[in-house]
């Protein structure tokens, strides 16, 4: 028997104690890694949305504010079935300070052959659009022609593929970068294609809140304000100039959400910190109990000639192995529950949720593992330090 093998022998031959320690550290790693990834995903989702939303103002039908939460539309990408006269587009463009105005027409969710999830079709005007075009990640054709579509990242087709909607074959010309919102499952087409799809749906007996006969309707108008103009004043002007429509400043909305998100982040950060502190206390108690339970074993090792330093390293190796195993288990469990269910988390949070890139996740996982190992080592070093201050002769006499 070699002293260097002793920590591993102890771990293997005391499976109950080993499993309990591994579970404890796994719980710690799970909460820390899981909490960190959720906060990072929310922050990234909002940042992505903020940078993607090029519009300063969005004009929607007045009824939209009562029919669906406008915030939901912006943050979750759940488009509603609401429409207003296309005349509002002309009226918006007439307002001084409006540089660009891009209309969109929403068609409520429908099921396509491609996907297990419901998709939403959004009609855009490629000539005036400034919202979608800059975010086309991969594209084989620049122009969104007849029966061409651009798809969100969650739609299971790529650029160059064909997407079948209501028995109509649409050519996928581009795919968008992820947003962490419901817009990731949207399909964008021009207004003519939208009309053809509506007709095809009607031919199949499927009805929507809009028919192919309703011409010139729009669901929302995205407005870019000319530089040098006050967005608030332009917003008020649009509000006054359009009919049965509401103009909403996107920036103020995002600021609101950003504020609530930082509140959530703060809460999660505090919770994570509380879990760390609580776990450290629990680990200290657990290790103190274990060291106390094993004090005769350690005193015996001292009696046999093991120095304090060597005994400390035996205890530290045992702890490090347990902490590392627990840390890995915790990170893996958190990953199993977090990454396959991002859509579920996104919809239950009601906020943009965009998983961080792999290197950042790996870095977080490594930091979590390092944290659990360091905390475990600190806890065991403290417990072992307390014990080693007592002469082994006294410990062994305490029969």
């Amino acid at each position, binding site marked *: 028997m070699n002293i260097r093998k002793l920590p591993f022998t102890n771990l293997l031959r005391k499976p109950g104690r080993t499993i309990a320690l591994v579970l404890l550290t796994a719980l710690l790693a799970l909460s820390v890694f899981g909490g960190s990834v959720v906060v990072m995903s929310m922050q990234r989702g909002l940042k992505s949305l903020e940078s993607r939303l090029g519009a300063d103002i969005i004009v929607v039908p007045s009824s939209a504010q009562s029919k669906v939460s406008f915030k939901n539309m912006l943050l979750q990408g759940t488009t509603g079935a609401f429409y207003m006269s296309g005349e509002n587009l002309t009226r918006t463009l007439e307002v001084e300070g409006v540089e660009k105005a891009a209309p969109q027409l929403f068609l409520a969710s429908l099921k396509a052959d491609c996907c297990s999830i419901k998709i939403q079709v959004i009609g855009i005007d490629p000539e005036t659009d400034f919202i979608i075009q800059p975010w086309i990640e991969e594209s084989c054709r620049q122009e969104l022609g007849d029966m061409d579509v651009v798809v969100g990242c969650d739609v299971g087709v790529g650029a160059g593929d064909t997407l079948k909607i209501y028995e109509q074959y649409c050519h996928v010309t581009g795919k968008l970068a992820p947003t962490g919102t419901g817009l990731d499952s949207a399909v964008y087409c021009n207004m003519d294609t939208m009309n053809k799809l509506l007709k095809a749906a009607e031919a199949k007996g499927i009805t929507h809140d809009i028919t192919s006969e309703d011409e010139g309707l729009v669901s929302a108008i995205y407005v870019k304000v000319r530089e040098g103009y006050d967005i608030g004043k332009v917003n008020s002007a649009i509000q006054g100039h359009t009919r049965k429509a509401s103009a909403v400043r996107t920036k103020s909305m995002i600021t609101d959400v950003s504020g609530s998100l930082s509140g959530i982040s703060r809460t999660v950060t505090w919770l994570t910190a509380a879990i760390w502190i609580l776990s450290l206390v629990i680990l200290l108690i657990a290790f103190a109990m274990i060291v106390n339970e094993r004090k005769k074993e350690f005193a015996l090792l001292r009696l046999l000639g093991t120095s304090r330093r060597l005994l400390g390293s035996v205890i530290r190796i045992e702890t490090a192995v347990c902490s590392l195993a627990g840390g890995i288990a915790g990170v893996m469990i958190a990953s199993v529950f977090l990454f396959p269910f991002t859509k579920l988390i996104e919809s239950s949070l009601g906020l943009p949720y965009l998983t961080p890139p792999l290197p950042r996740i790996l870095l977080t996982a490594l930091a979590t593992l390092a944290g659990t190992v360091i905390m475990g080592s600190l806890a065991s070093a403290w417990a072992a330090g307390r014990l080693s201050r007592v002469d082994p002769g006294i410990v062994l*006499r305490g029969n």
Partner: protein
Amino acid sequence: MLLEASSVEKWYLRGKGFSNRFFAVNSTDLILESGKVTVLTGRSGSGKTTLMNMMAGLLTPDGGKVLLDGKDLYAMDDNTLSRLRNRHFGMIPQGAEILPDLTVMENILLPIGIYRDRYGRSASEAEECARELLEQMEIGDLSDVPAKELSGGERRRVCAARALAGAPEFVFADEPTSDLDDDNTKIILSVLRQATASGCAVMIVTHDPEALGYADIHYRMDGGSLSVLPEDNKPKEEKIHAI
């Protein structure tokens, strides 16, 4: 090698205040001689184990010194003292402590595996010696058995084998025969006696009068003070031959 206690004392506080000191060992001198069995008897709480632990480098005295070839054990740093204990001292603790999750053989060889650069008996020599000791103590068939499955008597014999396997210069045995039957008592005491043949100094703390038959020197402790009983201090050659 000569191990010598010079005016060692140990006291504990009972209640609050320095004046409530209880002297477990009063200022005491003791020399452990090579090749001799020193037996220390006395009533419970008389300070026998405390004195032995101080001699074995396990308990820091409150006064006096413990010298090994003139070097004060308690002036050494922990690493040096630990290595010294590992190389030169063997101990049978009162509670017959062993590591329950290791096998009998792993327990016996554990002291030899603590330091890579441990000089003296090699691992293979120690294993051979350990097997011989186990045979001598009639537990040769238990070498691969987990220590937690042993009876009290078997544990004590394993402790004796562990103390002797590394061929130490000093062996400290604290109540090595308590709870043992007559046969096992004889086995352990004989093995300890045999160790002195190679120059080992053995110190036995006991209540067992049987041990006196194996003693070269007999001390008695009363209220923390040591007294030598010269009438008992005669060679025990006949006992060695009786094994």
